[in-house]
Each structure stands twice: as C-alpha cells, then as structure tokens.
C-alpha cells in the first residue's frame, strides 16, 4: 500500500520546491548531487553558481558531461574549505538518511550555508506506521526496495524527529513545506502523519 504514496516523489516535488527558493546568482552547494542534472537546471534557469559533492564515480562522470562542477566526497568529510556563510544555499535532498552522522552534517551545512534546504522521506507517514503495525516488519516498497540489513538508508526519521534534532542543535526551521499526495488538507494539518516527505529550510540560530 505504501507504494502508491511514493509515486510522486519519483518526480521529486522536493526539488521543485527547492528550485523555487534559489534566486539568480546565488551560490549553491548540493551534497549528494547525483548526476548533476538538478544543479545544471539551477545553473541554466536560475543563473546560480553551483558546486556539487558526490561519492559515485559514475555520477561524477555524468556531472562532468552536464557541465556541473563536482567534487568527489563521501559527504562525511569536513566542509572546512568553506568559510561561514560562503554559500547562499546548501541542499541536502534525500541524502540525510544515508549519512552516518546526520546531526554533524546539519551543523556543518548551517555554518557554510546562509540557509540550507533539507528534504527527506517521512518515516512517520501513516502508511509506514500501518505497514509496521500490521506486518510487524520494516516498511519496504519499490522506491525503498532494500531489506533492513542491506539498505544504504541507515538513518530514517520522521518529520517530528527532525524538528526535535534541530531544536537540540540550535538550528531554526525557517520554513517547512510538507509534500502530500491525496489529502492536501490533512498533509498540512498533520504533516507527520500524512506527508510523504518534506522540505525544511533551516538556518543557524542567530
């Protein structure tokens, strides 16, 4: 049942939301930029100055073909090459759950970015809860086809978990845009239950 709810995430509405945040000429760092097609779009349509970071050699080859500057990194590396607020935006789209220490990464990105846009899949979604409740097994579907033991997604969390973490880290949530599907009203009212994902805009508390 959970399958249906993630179909739209395939079209990556989170990226559409993030793209609309970026103004012309702004500097953007994308952690886990994949083949660079999103950064290419930001560069060409939004006139942004972009930099990607990515682990996979194959993805980097595609970034180069896309004309997007990309630096190979396991993303857990220090961002100490960048000064405070060097980037207007740091993007972490559906990558946080693969990181060993999401908390450390969040602190780094709000340092080097004036703002950061973080999107991830909500494990608190009702379908996940139901699947866990009824089958007693970790939720799986075609977009998250992994077993619990071989998944790269080692840090799933809920929207509520994220809010708590930000509070603990002294990070303020400037904006949260829940991504819903069938029930826009419910999605906005009870995002942690009805949003399949969310884009958080965060910054360091001043």
């Amino acid at each position, binding site marked *: 049942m959970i399958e249906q709810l993630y179909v739209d995430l395939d079209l990556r509405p989170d990226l559409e939301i993030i793209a609309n945040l970026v103004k012309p000429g702004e500097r953007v760092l994308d952690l886990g930029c994949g083949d660079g097609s999103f950064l290419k779009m930001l560069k060409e349509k939004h006139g942004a100055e972009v930099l990607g970071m990515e682990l996979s050699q194959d993805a980097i*080859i595609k970034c*180069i*073909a896309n004309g997007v*500057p990309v630096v*190979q990194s396991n993303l857990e590396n220090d961002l100490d*090459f960048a000064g405070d607020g060097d980037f207007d935006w740091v993007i972490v789209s559906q990558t946080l759950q693969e990181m060993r220490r999401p908390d450390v990464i969040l602190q780094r990105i709000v340092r080097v970015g004036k703002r950061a846009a973080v999107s991830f899949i909500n494990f608190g979604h009702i379908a996940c809860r139901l699947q866990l409740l009824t089958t007693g097994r970790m939720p799986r579907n075609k977009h998250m086809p992994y077993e619990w033991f071989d998944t790269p997604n080692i840090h799933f969390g809920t929207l509520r978990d994220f809010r708590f973490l930000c509070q603990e880290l002294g990070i303020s949530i400037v904006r949260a845009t829940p991504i819903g599907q069938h029930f826009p009203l419910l999605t906005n009212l009870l995002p942690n239950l009805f949003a399949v994902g969310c884009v958080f805009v965060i910054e360091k508390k001043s």
Partner: protein
Amino acid sequence: MLLVEPKNFQLQEPLELDCGRVLKQVNIRYETAGTLAPDKSNAILIEHALSGDAHVCGRYAESDPKPGWWDEMIGPGKYIDTDKYFVICSNVIGGCSGSTGPRSVDPDTGNPYNMDFPVITIRDMVRAQKRLIDHLGINKLLSVIGGSMGGMQAMEWAINYPESVDCIIPIATTSQLTSQNIAFDWVGREAIQGDPNWNKGNYSADHIPQKGLATARMLAHITYLSDESMSRKFGRELQDADSYRFAFNRDFAVESYLEYQGRRFVERFDANSYCYITRATDYFDLASRCGGDLAKAFEPVKSAFLVVSFSSDWLFPTEESIKIVRALLKNRVNVTFCEIESSYGHDAFLLEVETLGTMIRDFLRNRQKVNND
C-alpha cells in the same frame, strides 16, 4: 593516420631561471596536431611526465611501428579530438629529447653542459613553454593538461599565467613532493652517480652510465605500479625455469620485467637529464612560496580545474589531490575532482584511457561551450 613532425623553436631572449642563472640560446622541441582556429581559441597544451617527450600523438611516418606516448587519448575523433583542437606538446628544458638540456652544447664553452647545466625547476620549464605559446601567437590556451610531473607544470601555468589558460587538468599529481618521493629520487640519482661510467656527468656517448640509469629506472618503475597490479601481472611466476635455480641471476618474472624496463629506458633517456628533472620535481612545492599556505599559492588562479587521481596510486596518492582541491575551493575556483577506481597504481594515468578520456572530453567540450556563450 595522424602524421606529425618534430619542430624547433629557438628562444630569442635568454631564459632567467629560479636558481638565479640564465640559460642562453634555449631550444624547445615541440610537436603540434590539429589546426589552430582563426580566433585561436582551441589550443591545448599537453605536458609530459618525467620521462616523456614532445611526441605525444600520431606517427612521423606511416611505417612507424609506435605512435606518440598518449596516442590513445589524442588524435582525430579521439577523446582529445585533433579535428576540433590544436594540440601542442613540447619537451621540457633539462630534457634529452630535443629541448635544451644538460647534454646540449654550452654556447659559452662550446662543450656540453653536463653537470654545469643550471638546476632548473618546474616553473622554469613552464616559463620556457610560455615563450613558445607566445611565439605561436596564442593569447589564451583552452587547456593545459598533464599527468604526474605534467600536472605540476599545469598548475604552474594556472598560478603564473592566470590570464593565459581557460582550464587546467592536473592528473595523478601533487602540490609538493613528500619526503618519501624525494627519497626515491635520491636513490635513483645515487645509482647513476655511483656508476663508474658517470664520471661526474662527463661521460661520452659510448660509455654512458648504463647500469646506474637502468637501476634508477627500475626503482622508479616500481613506484609507478601497485602491489595489486604487480601481483596480478607477475605474481611469483618464474621466468625461464620450473623451479628455483638457487642463484642470483633473474629467476622471477618481475625481475625480468624490471630488467627489460631498465634496458629500454637506457636506450632513450640521458642520465644527466634524469638527475636534473628529478631534482626539479624535488624542489616542487607550491605552498612553500606562501609560507606553507597552499590556498594562498592558488590565489591568482582564474582557470577552471579538473583534478583526477587514481585509487591505487601510492606515489602521488588521492590525499595529495584532495589537498589541491580544498585549496582551490578556498579560492572559490570552479573545480571538479574525481578519484578514478583503478588497480594500476601511478601508471593508471596512461592506462585508464576510457574513463579519464571521457571526463577530459566532456570537460573540454563544456569549457569551450562556456567560452563561446
């Protein structure tokens, strides 16, 4: 078939060197392939590594058995496409393949310089190349590309002539030689200079320090391979026998291979040049000019960078490239970096042609697009 020919350019003015001395009547041997565009926007300078030369691609005659050293990469329709780009490669000064070096005749004495040749640096090599590029009427190179010592020269271009090159592709290289690198060079030169034929560099053409130079090459060659690639290629295979001969002549395949590499090298390379060029790399240390601050050394850079390293390269390992990348990022340089997965060790820069070539081809295409917009 791509046919090329060796060309010579005599520097009009003496060349001032880092050591304070001046080199007169410098000759630069170079080759070109492709056609320079009317707006001269398609010129690419290829930098050779320690033992390379200007013969980078193509053949001198149809009957030539072997093409240039990077012929798989460069040529019509290849990754660096000579139908699109004008490719230049020159022999470094201090070399022994046509450019002025220690075996050249000193115009002041009428005799070969040998060890009276001034100690040159990587920057000196690039200074000489800049004169050649000026002579060819090229204001701005599209790219300077080089592996190993070639990468060092490429970075010197970006720092010393930031307006003269659009993008730099340093491959399997480093911003400074480490103590270990310097140590290998020292042992190599000790082998040469300890050869009775060396004679303080004043050897005649028929009494060259063959053994010393071959030993230096064998030692260096090991540093270009990896444990994995050597194990795969030779393992513990015996060369000519089925069992140990309990003697000290070569028994193992790897010994035979190194012997062959040493022998071949002696046929084409000069011992004094080997001393001078390895010394130039020893002194290479970009950060040292700025109190150890590599980012500061890169401050003048305006070119975009594609930095490439190889996972099994232990001579100039990936960490060295990462240092370069971080220093460039600190200067907000447009930089791309990838470590290519490979088991070939340092030599991978000549062997991983497909992966490296794809990156270079696409990077150059996008740079040219940016420049044309």
